[in-house]
């Protein structure tokens, strides 16, 4: 399929897709009808758990996040259970399973039980379309980007179900915020992705990766605005900190999770990480070249490159979570509608023009580098200009208090004391 890279031999472990494909063929021949699917599912589950879920969700997602945030907060983080505290996620899981799962008397029991379950399923589905390597993609469907967006809109309903079912005011606040925020952030997200799709001309994720590989450019350079919009929207829909208003702990006490305890809460917690990693994987695939790394994928197994990139991307989420304060709901909505949406539209117009130019002039592929420079400059100009147009004036905000030496009454702003130092 890709002669430059993969030999298609089953022993070519640089792409595990070869091995599993061969295995499936063999089993299909050997086993009666139907059983092969069961067996393949079991093997696939075990393999993906070992290769992806274990390092990602448990070690990076739970342990790494806690450790890193601990370091950001100048403390040690988990360091008691097992070597370097590595067994902390396991200990957490055991603790959560032992805990009593409380159900409030007035809660809508069915919905409350259903919500964590429904929350888990889409997370697993999301990974089906992610290409881990040239042949390592479970379902290389032609509308994978749409599929990803579609499936990732389901957990929103779940969080709504969770929040509403408790009959708790804080949870209802959380649910309302989730719903309101999602409507606002889907729009710029889809518009941003549209810009990407216009360039690549395909909705398939594998196609997007190959396009980037072929032109030797990552889409993050061609589409900086789309990347920023994707990152912000993703962190908004994942409830990561700068935008975690749906479970704002200091305001509405974890929002839709207020009444959950034990493993029901644990499922939400674990799957939050799962969604974050899925979003990171999607971002890496679309914007950061997926499993390619400028030729290095010939030597290093692409899936290792991919997992590494995903974890680095996930680090961005951890970083923002550890350092940024939270926005207010109305500010978040204003940001989506007044700032991101117009900029996304501008970006779309620019991309359409460039794409048209590219096709009509039958230009060389290296024109994308020119496009990249234009787009980066245009992105900076648009962000700066539009924020100024919206009334953003950072230099007018004094950041230091005035200083006076004598006690007395009111000091008017004009007289100013000794001014900001």
């Amino acid at each position, binding site marked *: 399929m890709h002669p430059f890279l993969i030999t298609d031999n089953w022993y070519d472990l640089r792409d595990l897709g070869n091995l599993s494909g061969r295995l499936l063929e063999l089993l299909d021949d050997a086993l009666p009808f139907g059983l092969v699917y069961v067996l393949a599912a079991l093997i696939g589950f075990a393999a993906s758990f070992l290769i992806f879920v274990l390092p990602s969700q448990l070690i990076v997602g739970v342990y790494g996040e806690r450790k890193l945030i601990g370091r950001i907060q*100048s403390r040690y983080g988990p360091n008691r259970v097992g070597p370097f505290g590595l067994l902390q996620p396991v200990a957490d899981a055991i603790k959560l399973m032992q805990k009593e799962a409380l159900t409030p008397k007035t809660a809508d029991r069915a919905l409350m039980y259903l919500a964590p379950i429904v929350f888990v399923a889409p997370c697993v589905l999301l990974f089906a379309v992610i290409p881990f390597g040239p042949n390592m993609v479970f379902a290389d469907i032609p509308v994978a980007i749409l599929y990803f967006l579609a499936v990732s809109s389901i957990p929103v309903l779940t969080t709504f179900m969770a929040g509403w079912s408790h009959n708790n005011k804080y949870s209802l606040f959380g649910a309302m915020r989730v719903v309101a925020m999602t409507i606002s952030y889907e729009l710029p997200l889809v518009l941003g992705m549209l810009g990407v799709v216009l360039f690549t001309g395909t909705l398939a994720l594998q196609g997007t990766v190959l396009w980037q590989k072929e032109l030797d450019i990552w889409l993050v350079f061609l589409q900086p605005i789309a990347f920023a919009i994707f990152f912000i929207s993703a962190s908004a829909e994942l409830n990561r900190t700068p935008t975690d208003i749906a479970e704002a702990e200091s305001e509405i006490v974890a929002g839709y999770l207020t009444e959950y305890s034990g493993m029901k809460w644990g499922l939400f917690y674990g799957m939050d990480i799962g969604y974050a990693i899925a979003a990171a994987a999607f971002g890496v695939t679309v914007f950061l070249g997926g499993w390619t790394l400028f030729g290095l994928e010939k030597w290093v197994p692409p899936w290792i490159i991919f997992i590494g990139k995903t974890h680095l991307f996930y680090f961005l989420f951890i970083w923002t979570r550890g350092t940024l304060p939270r926005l*207010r709901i109305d500010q978040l909505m204003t940001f989506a509608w007044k700032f991101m949406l117009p900029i996304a539209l501008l970006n779309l117009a620019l991309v359409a023009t460039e794409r048209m130019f590219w096709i009509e002039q039958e230009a060389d592929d290296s024109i994308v580098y020119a496009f990249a420079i234009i787009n980066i400059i245009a992105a900076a100009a648009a962000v700066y200009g539009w924020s100024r147009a919206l009334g953003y004036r950072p230099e007018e905000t004094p950041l230091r208090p005035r200083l006076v030496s*004598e*006690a*007395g009454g009111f000091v008017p702003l004009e007289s100013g004391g000794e001014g900001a130092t």
Partner: protein
Amino acid sequence: MSGLIKSEPFTLNIGPQHPSTHGVFRIKVKVDGERIVDAEMVMGYLHRAMEKLAEERTYTQNIPFTDRTDYLASMSNNLGYVLAVEKLAGINVPERGNAIRVIMAELQRIASHCMAVGAFTNDTGAWQTPVMWCFRERERVLDLFEMTSGARLTCNYMRIGGVAFDLPKEFEPATRRLLADLPGFIDEIEGLLVGNEIFLARTRGVGALSAETATNFSLSGPMLRGSGIAWDIRKADPYCGYEKYDFQIPIGYQGDAFDRFIVRLEEMRQSVKIVQQALDALPGGPHSTQVPLALRPPAGEAYARVEGPRGELGYYVVSDEGPSPYRFHIRPPSFINLSALKEMTVGGTVADAIVVLGSIDIVVGEIDR
């Protein structure tokens, strides 16, 4: 919003068990959507009848009670109380005692402001990071307290007529090390938060009080200074020899949560300056005068106040020549600063209310006493 869609306001209980009420404090807010239309405070969950208890104990025995009102600023509380009793009984404090008091009170201000700044940023949603940073520095101040008084939180260090113990010899180098690090730490916090767009958006213009309103609501401390009123008891009514030290009063611009925040940060800088000067000019001599254990001040009354970390911390003591105060009243700054809470929160959102509450810097032990 309210004109477009008919919605019924409902009551939301913020607290008593809520991560952002800094203790057992409760606000009953009536919200219309996310907008607050009414706010009512419910407090007293931590009421320990300190003022009544103090009427049954001798003047010296009351000092530990003052630790437990505002447990984040026990030194300042000690100081306010002993100043009131000294004023009542006409006791003079030796130079060295005064200097040590100033050092302790300023270190306490740094520790308390660390807590205030950290908790406030936590309320804005900065998920624990600034809190942890602030705790790191506060811990070092508490170590100094432990070194001198033996206790970290409730120090019980001031005595009528001076302080309980002289400074240990390790104190000065340790304090100098801390003072060398503190400005860098304050710059760090400033770099992390003050220029941050999200933080600015969350705090600018939130809970703004004009100077007239702030005065009328009897506010004090950083709340008053944030509104642009240059009022600091240390400057206006110097005690313990504050007139000898060179420092400035930081004041804000429009009296919003952000102004209070930057005022607190700047106050920490000024406190560092004061401690530096006090250490440089630390006089010798005794640290305390001898005061009879069963002190019986002459009949009369005294109102003494200090500039506590949260504002004007006053003690009103009435004596009837008995061995214990006839009336013992605390003017708790964070309690009185709360009186403007409704003014500041109504019309904002729930998230704003949390920020406003954080900017007041309440200590429930002091509110309920």
